[in-house]
């Protein structure tokens, strides 16, 4: 574990100056807004800024203007957390085009932000980290996009003097406006609009007090949220470049959908009757994509066959489950890299990046990316862009391939083993364990617990339409584990005999919300009501620094036919012609969000943690280290 954090600074003595130190004014103001004033007042002053006591949560240092900025609260169904987070800052030349190609899933914004950094940008913090490329070169491009963006995005950034603000972030713009208003001096206004250095990431002198204030304490808005977000923000703050992320692709926007369709490789016809609340998610007529793709095989020049294969497998649900999909994708990319040769007059880092990007957008069209895949892609792109320029093709390729192998091995396989070790300690003889669906980690936990002769019983809870639990059930019964199989309808009945609930997760978000197979939230809620501990097993590479409060704004829609039809029951054909009926809307959601209240413990390779510690892990490891 220590290997991953080689340069950890020595932790200073855990002493904090306490007692009756007069707090400075800023911390008092912070305390006033906090719910526990005395705590802040007594703990925040005194500690020298250099040796921040380890217990002190680094204060959220992003500009409060950003949080308070009314422009940031969009109406509609964007994910608001993204905006608050200022997470993956995107300011890319390739954005507008990339964006349309993307599906509406988690992976999108990550890989998007990296994508841009690879293609052109040196503007974002990440970009500058990844690619030591000349910034100046990309400036015109950036400004162009930015301008276009400000026009497109519902006129929200359309303040005065757009032209001068090409290189300003929205937060900076806002700060500048406020400073101007406060001063009410025309001269100052002129200075502010004129005096912004082109690529400068420093806030202007007039805006300084604002960042200062948040350095000292908790920002005005909800302290808990601010604490939770501190980790992700901290890093970005360093570069003073907080850009509003682009809203996710909204599939109820006809214009954008039209554009997307023009670019799409896979010809997808959309289902007509969709539930109002979920119009922003893509839903296609099932079964139309596959034959179409098969026909197109020989026309699709740029897609590598292995990626094509994996894409088809995603499409037909042959490969499902976060880890399996991620591994399949990485292995396909490995082959892409294997067969890759740099075209003349191009550099490997850039050309390979575009190649990977096109593969990713192909995969996204087949099925929206999961968080785990998004993180893996981010990792790969990170590796690609950090390759030394003078490296020969062969070495670069082998280094990337070994990186991929390492990722699969360390982040997925070994992490899984560590999770098994940790979780087995919580299984004792006589336990009745309940699991939902077919999480791969839980399967290995149960298998291992059985191998070491623990005496327990398993309740497998399953649900329509996929019946994934049966796969798990079959494997467990084959190994001689005593099982009970039931559907989620009966979960409240079986729960009273259960002593532990083991669940898997597609992702764990920064506020501790578990994003997982639909139905998980229901099981967790019932378990919570019955006071049964809920253990969520999840590798740390699935952690995501965004916050999500519900399962509406980001989700995936499955085939509506799957829930309207009961296969093998010809007599249950009440909904046969549903697609023609205007009044009928079918909703087959794939994921849901479990609030952290229902989760007793999160088992990761880092050990057992309360769900409140996700941001700490993200902060401690750093996004890059966690996935790299």
């Amino acid at each position, binding site marked *: 574990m220590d290997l991953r954090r080689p340069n950890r600074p020595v932790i200073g003595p855990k002493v904090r100056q306490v007692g009756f130190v007069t707090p400075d004014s800023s911390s008092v103001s912070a305390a006033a807004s906090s719910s526990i004033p005395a705590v802040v007042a*007594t703990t925040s002053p005194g500690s020298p800024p250099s040796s921040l006591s380890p217990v002190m949560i680094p204060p959220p240092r992003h500009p409060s203007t950003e949080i308070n900025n009314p422009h940031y609260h969009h109406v509609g169904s964007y994910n608001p957390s993204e905006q608050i987070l200022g997470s993956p800052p995107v300011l890319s030349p390739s954005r507008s085009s990339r964006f349309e190609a993307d599906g509406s899933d988690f992976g999108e914004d990550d890989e998007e932000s990296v994508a841009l950094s690879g293609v052109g940008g040196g503007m974002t913090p990440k970009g500058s980290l990844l690619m030591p490329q000349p910034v100046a070169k990309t400036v015109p491009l950036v400004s162009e996009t930015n301008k276009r963006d400000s026009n497109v995005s519902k006129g929200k950034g359309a303040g005065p003097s757009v032209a001068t603000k090409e290189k300003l972030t929205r937060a900076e713009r806002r700060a500048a406006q406020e400073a101007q208003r406060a001063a009410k001096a025309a001269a100052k206004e002129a200075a502010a609009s004129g005096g912004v250095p082109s690529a400068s990431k420093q806030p202007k002198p007039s805006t300084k007090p604002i960042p200062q204030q948040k350095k000292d304490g908790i920002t005005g808005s909800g302290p808990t949220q601010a604490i939770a977000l501190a980790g992700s923000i901290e890093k970005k703050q360093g570069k003073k470049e907080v850009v509003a992320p682009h809203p996710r692709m909204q599939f109820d926007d006809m214009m954008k959908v039209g554009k997307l369709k023009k670019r799409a490789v896979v010809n997808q016809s959309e289902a007509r009757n969709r539930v109002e609340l979920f119009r922003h998610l893509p839903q296609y007529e099932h079964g139309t994509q596959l034959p179409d793709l098969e026909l197109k095989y020989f026309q699709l020049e740029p897609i590598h066959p292995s990626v094509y294969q994996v894409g088809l497998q995603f499409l037909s649900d042959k490969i499902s489950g976060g880890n399996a999909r991620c591994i399949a994708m990485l292995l396909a990319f490995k082959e892409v890299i294997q067969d890759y040769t740099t075209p003349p007059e191009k550099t490997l880092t850039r050309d390979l990046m575009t190649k990977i990007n096109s593969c990713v957008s192909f995969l996204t069209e087949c099925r929206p990316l999961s968080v785990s895949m998004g993180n893996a892609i981010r990792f790969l792109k990170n590796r690609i862009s950090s390759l030394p320029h003078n490296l020969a093709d062969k070495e670069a390729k082998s280094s990337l391939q070994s990186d991929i192998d390492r990722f699969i091995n360390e982040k997925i396989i070994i992490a899984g083993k560590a999770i098994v070790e940790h979780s087995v300690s919580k299984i004792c*003889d006589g336990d009745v364990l309940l699991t939902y669906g077919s999480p791969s980690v839980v399967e290995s936990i149960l298998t291992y617990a059985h191998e070491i002769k623990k005496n327990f019983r398993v309740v497998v809870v399953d649900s329509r339409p996929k019946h994934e639990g049966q796969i798990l059930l079959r494997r467990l019964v084959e190994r001689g584990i005593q099982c009970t199989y039931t559907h989620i309808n009966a979960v409240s009945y079986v729960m009273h005999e259960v002593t532990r609930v083991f669940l898997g997760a597609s992702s764990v978000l920064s506020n501790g919300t578990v994003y997982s197979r639909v139905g998980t939230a229901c099981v967790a809620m019932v378990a919570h009501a019955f006071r049964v501990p809920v253990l969520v097993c999840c590798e740390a590479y699935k952690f995501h620094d965004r916050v999500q409060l519900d399962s509406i704004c980001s989700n995936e829609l499955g085939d509506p036919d799957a829930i309207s039809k009961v296969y093998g029951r010809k007599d249950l054909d009440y909904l046969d012609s549903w697609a023609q009926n205007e009044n009928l809307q079918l909703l087959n959601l794939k994921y849901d969000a479990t609030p952290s209240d229902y989760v007793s413990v999160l088992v990761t390779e880092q050990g057992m943690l309360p769900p409140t510690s996700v941001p700490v892990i993200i902060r401690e490891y750093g996004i890059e280290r966690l996935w790299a």
Partner: protein
Amino acid sequence: MWWRSASFIRDRQNQNQNPNPNPKPFSLLHSALDDPPSPHTSASMATINPNPNPISAYYQTRAEHHAVVTPDWLAQSQTAAEAASGDASVSSEGTAGGSKGEVRGVGVIEEFNYWRKKPDLAEAVAAIMALGAAIRSSEANTMIELDIELKKASNTLKSWDTTSISLSAACDLFIRYVTRTSALEYEDFDAAKRRLIERAEKFGEISLKARNTIAMLSQDFISDGCTILVHGYSRVVLEVLKMAASNRKLFRVLCTEGRPDRTGLRFSKELAALGVPVKLLIDSAVAYAMDEVDMVFVGADGVVESGGIINMMGTYQVALVAHSMNKPIYVAAESYKFARLYPLDQKDLEPALRPIDFGVPLPSGVEVETSARDYTPPQYLTLLFTDLGVLTPSVVSDELIQLYV
């Protein structure tokens, strides 16, 4: 959960069908008193707790320090303590292996016992001091040797009392804190060793001052005219109240009786000596008295990773009552009690057992719950006063992650 569950009934049936006495966890519930010839009914139990004595060593120390009221309990615990220390030295010889290691192990224990005898010193601080002394007197010539020696010493201390959470937590924290320094990469061994000693002293110093720090931090929370409910005898809580009294704050304290070792009696005596108005409650009157209480103060045997605490039996119950009446529950605990444990429920703890004197002979065929402590989940706690500051429960895990990961 077990008792009303269908699976339990099923398991019972299974058991009846095949009389194979496979140890089930609920056999832990059967007390030691139930079955006098072998104190532990289950074999798994014996593997968990190598100390065959039914009294937790942790409570032996407490008995020594707190001069528990019941004289026979004291006598009992003293004999047990002797037996246990005999055990410990045997086990230390066993673990230490070579002759040099053996000397080292015994040395640590001696040092530990020396510090432990000081009435105001917590067991964990004694362990920290003993480990510091172990580094100082070490004859190791390389960093790795020193590291191994230190680990050995810490293991010896931990095996002295496996049930004490604060002891093992303090040993772990000491090792993490002291060795987690770039000094280990120094070329010069002596310089590195000096650095280690420095850090060990620092850590010892912080631990010694911890109580005072906590007392200072918590003063803002005690206001004039408030009524405080205290459960159990905690030296930190006593220090907090002492300082509040010396700051001329006017407050009232309700003490629970704290059966079976009647810790509340002793606590109320100490408070009365300070001139603080104090009222004694029987343990079952907590809910009755909660109306007039403004805040609850408890100490902790250990603070676990979830942010919950492990403390004297009854804390959970007090916390539940206080929580349901929306009264704040404050925990005063030194940071060396932060342990890398994550209990999911009450049974998920290593049991610390203690005899209970009911004053009358027990009816035959009745079992007694002898567990000495319970686990209070974090959602029932308002704040933790530690020497690191005033923390919400969730910060405990952050703190531990910082140190361990």
